[in-house]
């Protein structure tokens, strides 16, 4: 059979239809390139951002806090000479505790903190352990 242009065109279209019929065409999806659900991306992303932010704030708090702020109180022990018995203190203590006054003058020293605040005090407050608590430094 003699082949002309129309035969070729007709056969080409027949081939086209056969090939097209065998194709699997997926349905229209304008988000085809984004298969992963957004929440599946958003949740790990939020966790990572939170973790990084936590590290960052922790690192910043370290750098801003002075080292001394971690120590509540610094005690300094100052060696002091034996306290002198003050006559006024002796008189007051004798009036308050006559029994103790009889036992000896070394027993009459009182803690500065335990003295009556309304009562007038004289001299330096010295404790039994010879520590000057008035010199305690609070930082």
């Amino acid at each position, binding site marked *: 059979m003699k082949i002309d242009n129309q035969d070729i065109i007709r056969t*080409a279209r027949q*081939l086209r239809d056969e090939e097209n019929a065998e*194709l699997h065409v997926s349905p*229209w999806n304008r988000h085809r*390139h984004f298969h992963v659900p957004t929440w599946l991306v958003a949740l790990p992303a939020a966790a990572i951002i939170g973790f990084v932010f936590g590290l960052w704030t922790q690192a910043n708090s370290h750098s801003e806090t002075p080292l001394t702020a971690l120590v509540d109180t610094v005690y300094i022990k100052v060696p002091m000479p034996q306290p002198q018995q003050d006559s006024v203190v002796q008189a007051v203590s004798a009036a308050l505790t006559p029994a103790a006054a009889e036992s000896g003058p070394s027993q009459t020293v009182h803690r500065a903190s335990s003295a009556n605040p309304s009562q007038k005090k004289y001299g330096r407050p010295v404790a039994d352990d010879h520590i000057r608590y008035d010199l305690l430094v609070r930082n």
Partner: protein
Amino acid sequence: MMLFPLKLSAQTDEQLMLRASRGSDHAFEELYNRHARRLQGFFVRRLGEDADLAADFMHDTFLRLYAAREKYHEGNSFRAWLYTIAYNLCKNHHRNQLTIVRNDEKDMPAEADIEVELDTNILHDALREVLKNLPEPYAMLFSLHYEEELTIPQIAQITDLPEGTVKSRLHKTMNIIKQQLKQYENR
């Protein structure tokens, strides 16, 4: 404005594209349903029988069309626009191969009518083989004109070639096909 708009299936491609350009996703989906298979087939033939790549290219073409849908102007041919995108995707894919093929144009047969005698059954298989081995610029024009049934002015617009060049190349394409079919005459 119509009070009772026509069903999507009853509308032309251009009417649907106009609706899609105004925000109707249903109209665009109807266009996809109408043309996806045919366009995918076009890509299969133009990209060397790679079905997955053809499916990707087909979807990519529609994604580009969707992204640019607001630029559609009333009266423009939808198919010409669709195949312009498809043609450019193929052209980019074959850019290096086209350079090689262009140098072979001198070896193509002169413009003369070649007579071929073949049995119809043989023609079917022979043409399949011939079209597979057709040099790319000719295969593209053959595909656009004879398989996808686009007019010569539309092809000229798609390929950015003068209409006369398109016509002469199509004539040359037919001669190449016939010359190659002659090899099957005595089998």
